[in-house]
C-alpha cells in the first residue's frame, strides 16, 4: 500500500500537482494493517497527517474493512467513495458497512484464481491504476511514468508486470473517470465545538502505564513475522552447544542434553543471525512461504 500510495502521489506530481503522501503504521511487522494517504492540490498543501474525511478510500484487503483497529471506515461520509478489492458485490459492502457514499469493486481479470483477493499479484499497482482513473486528472502516460519512477530499481520485469496490471485496472474503470471529486475545505464560519473534557486525576493504580508480565512475550507468536526460515542440518552441526543459541537475539534456540540445537519456530523471527554465526555452516535459510506450503 505504501508503494501504491507513492505511485498515485508521483502520478499526481507528474500532472503538475502539489503532493503529500505517506504510509502509516505502528511497529512494523508482517500481517499488521497498514495504510497510506495521498493529498494532491494545485496549491501548496498545508494540511498534514491523517486524512480525516477522505474523498476516496481504497481498500486492498477486504478482511480489514470490518476490523475497527484498521480504521478503514474513519471519516467516510456521503462524499467519500470506497474502492474495495473483493469477490463480493459493491451492494453487499455498502449494506454490510452501512456506508452513505458510493462503493466500487476493484475490477480484476477473471482468469486469476486466488484464495483471498488481497493475494492478487501486483494488487498495489491495480489499486494505484484504478485510483488514478477515478480521480480523473491523471493520464495514462503519467501513471506509467510514475510506475517506472517507483519500481524502476526493481528491474524491467517488475515494471512490466505492474504496468500491465495498473493499466488494466485503469482501463476497466474508464466509465468512472472523475467519479472522485474534491470536497470544499472546512470553513471557519461555523464549526462544531470539540467535545473536550478535563481529564480527572486517577490514582497510579489505574493510570500508571505499567506492563509487568514476563509471560506476554512467550504468548506472542512472533514466528509469524518470519519471511525466511533457518533450518539446521543435523549432519553438519558439530554440537558446539553454544554458538547459535547464544547469538539468537530472541532466545529461540535451545540445546538439549545431547548438544542438539532446536529452533522454536513460534518465536524465531527469521533474522538469520544464527545462519551467519554458525561455524560449520550447518544452518540454511528457506523461504517461509514454501515451507508452510509443504506443511
Amino acid at each position, binding site marked *: 500500500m505504501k508503494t501504491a500510495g*507513492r505511485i498515485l*502521489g*508521483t502520478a499526481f*506530481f507528474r500532472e503538475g500537482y*502539489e*503532493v*503529500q*503522501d*505517506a*504510509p*502509516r503504521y*505502528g*511497529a512494523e511487522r508482517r500481517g499488521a494493517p497498514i495504510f497510506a494517504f495521498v493529498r494532491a492540490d494545485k496549491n501548496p*498543501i*498545508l*494540511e*498534514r*497527517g*491523517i486524512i*480525516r474525511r477522505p474523498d476516496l478510500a481504497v481498500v486492498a484487503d477486504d478482511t480489514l474493512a470490518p476490523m475497527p483497529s484498521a480504521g478503514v471506515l474513519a471519516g467516510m461520509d456521503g462524499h467519500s467513495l470506497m474502492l474495495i478489492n473483493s469477490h463480493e458485490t459493491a451492494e453487499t459492502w455498502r449494506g454490510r458497512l452501512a456506508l452513505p457514499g458510493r462503493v466500487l469493486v476493484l475490477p480484476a481479470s477473471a482468469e486469476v484464481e486466488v484464495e483471498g483477493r488481497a493475494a492478487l499479484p501486483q494488487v498495489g499497482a491495480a489499486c494505484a491504476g484504478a485510483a488514478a482513473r477515478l480521480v480523473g486528472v491523471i493520464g495514462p502516460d503519467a501513471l506509467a511514468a510514475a510506475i517506472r519512477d517507483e519500481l524502476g530499481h526493481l528491474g524491467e520485469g517488475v515494471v512490466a508486470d505492474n504496468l500491465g496490471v495498473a493499466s488494466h485496472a485503469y482501463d476497466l474503470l474508464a466509465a468512472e473517470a472523475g467519479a472522485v471529486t474534491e470536497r470544499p*475545505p*472546512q*470553513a*471557519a*464560519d461555523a*464549526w*462544531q*465545538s*470539540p*467535545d*473536550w*473534557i478535563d*481529564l480527572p486525576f486517577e490514582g497510579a493504580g*489505574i493510570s500508571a*502505564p505499567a*506492563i509487568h*508480565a514476563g*509471560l506476554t512475550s512467550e504468548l506472542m507468536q512472533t514466528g509469524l513475522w518470519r519471511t525466511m526460515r533457518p533450518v539446521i542440518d543435523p549432519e553438519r552441526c558439530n554440537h558446539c552447544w553454544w554458538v547459535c543459541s547464544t547469538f539468537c537475539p530472541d532466545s529461540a534456540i535451545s540445546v538439549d542434553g545431547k548438544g542438539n540445537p532446536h529452533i522454536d519456530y513460534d518465536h524465531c523471527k527469521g533474522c538469520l543471525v544464527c545462519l551467519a554465526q554458525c561455524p560449520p555452516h550447518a544452518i540454511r535459510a528457506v523461504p517461509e512461504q514454501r515451507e508452510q506450503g509443504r506443511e
Partner: protein
Amino acid sequence: MNRILITGNVAAAWGARLADIDYCPAFPITPQTEIIETLAAWIDQGEMPGRLVMLESEHAMVTAAGAAAATGVRVFSATSSQGLLYALEMLYNVAGWRAPFVLVNVSRGLAAPITLEPDHNDILAARDCGFLQIHCATCQEVLDSVLMAYRLGEDPSVRLPVLVNLDGFYLSFTREPVDIPDPSAVREFLPPFDAGTIRFRASAPESQAVAVLSGGPYSYFRYEMHLAARNGLAAYDRIATEFEASFGRNWPAVEAYRCEDAEQLFVMMGSFATKAKAAVDSLRAAGWRIGLLRPRLLRPFPEGLFRYWMRGKRGAAVIDQNISLGSGGVLYSEVAAAIHGQPDMPLLTSFIGGLGGRDIPPEEFFEMARIARDAAEQGQAPPPRLLYTADELRETRKLQTLARVERARLSGGEQP
C-alpha cells in the same frame, strides 16, 4: 530546477550530502533510520564521498561525532527520541568542546508508555545543553536547515553544534516536493569548513583549560558558551539573508504568517504549524484577523522577534506539542518570559496538543482561536487546556478494560 518528491528523512540526508560531510557516526532508531540508510547507500554506491560508521549506541555515536568534529572535519549524525536521551550526557559534554557539527533529531514521544509518533519532549530535553536548535515544518525546510545549520554552527562567533529537528511520521515518512539545490550553488553558500583553531590531533596534545574547575573558571567557560549561543541570533539573520539571496527561500528565525494586521495569533512550532496556517487561512476567509508565529530557532531564543511581532496584538493561543510534567507547555513559558514586562503585549492562553502524534483537526484550531479571543476581551486567561475529547477517553477506557481482563487471566482468574 530539480524538484522531486522525497520524505523528510531523505531531505535530511540530501542536506548532509550537499554539505559535503566527511564523517557520519550512526545508530538506527525509528523513525530516523531512513536518514542513515539513505546516506549509507549513497556512500556505498560512490554517489557521495565521506565515511559512515555504525557505533554501538547513541552515546558512543555523539562522542564519536564530537571527537571527529574536534579534529576540524565536517560531521553529521542523526537520532530520535530515546536515542537522543541516551546521548544526553554527551550532548552537554561535546557542546562544551566548542567543535561544531550537525545532529538531526526526528521527534518522537518519550517512554513510558512507549510511542513511535511525534511530540517535542525529546528535543526539548536537550534544550539547555548548548546545542543550538532549528525546528522544521516542511521537508524543504529540513534540507535547507541542515545547510544553514552548518553555517551557523561553524560561524567563528558561535562555534557550537546544532540540532535540526523534524517531526516523526508527519515529516520523516511524508513525501513532499523538495527543490534539490544545485551543488555548486551550495558550495558557494557553504564552502568547505575552515576549521581554524579546531585541529585536535592525537599526536599533538594541547590545552585551553584545566580538567577540574572551581566555580569561577567553570562559570567563565559556561557563560562563554551562552554568549556564543546568543551570537547565534545575529549570525542566523545574516545566514538567512544570504540563503535567500542564493536560493530564493526565506527562513527567518521566527516565521510570521499573515501577522501584519492580525489581532490574534497562533504560536506553535514544528510541522503541525502548517495545519495552523491552514486554520489561519480558513479563519481569515471567515473575517478573522489572525496569524501564526512559528519559532524556527529555539536556541538561541529569538525573544526580540517575538516582542516585535506580538506588540499590539490582543490575544495569542500558544499551542505546545510537549508537556513539562508538573508545569505545562514549554513554549508557553518561553514566550511568556520573552514578553513579560514589555508594553502592549497580548494575553497568552496555553494549550497542550499533539502529544504522541495526536492529531489537531481544523475545528480545534478554530475553537482555540475563539477561546484566546474571548480571554483577551475579558482580560483573563483560562487555565491551560489539554486537547482531549470524550471520545479519546472512551478509547483509552477500552484499552484499560482489555488490560484488566488480561491481568485477571494471567493472575489465574483473580479479579482486579
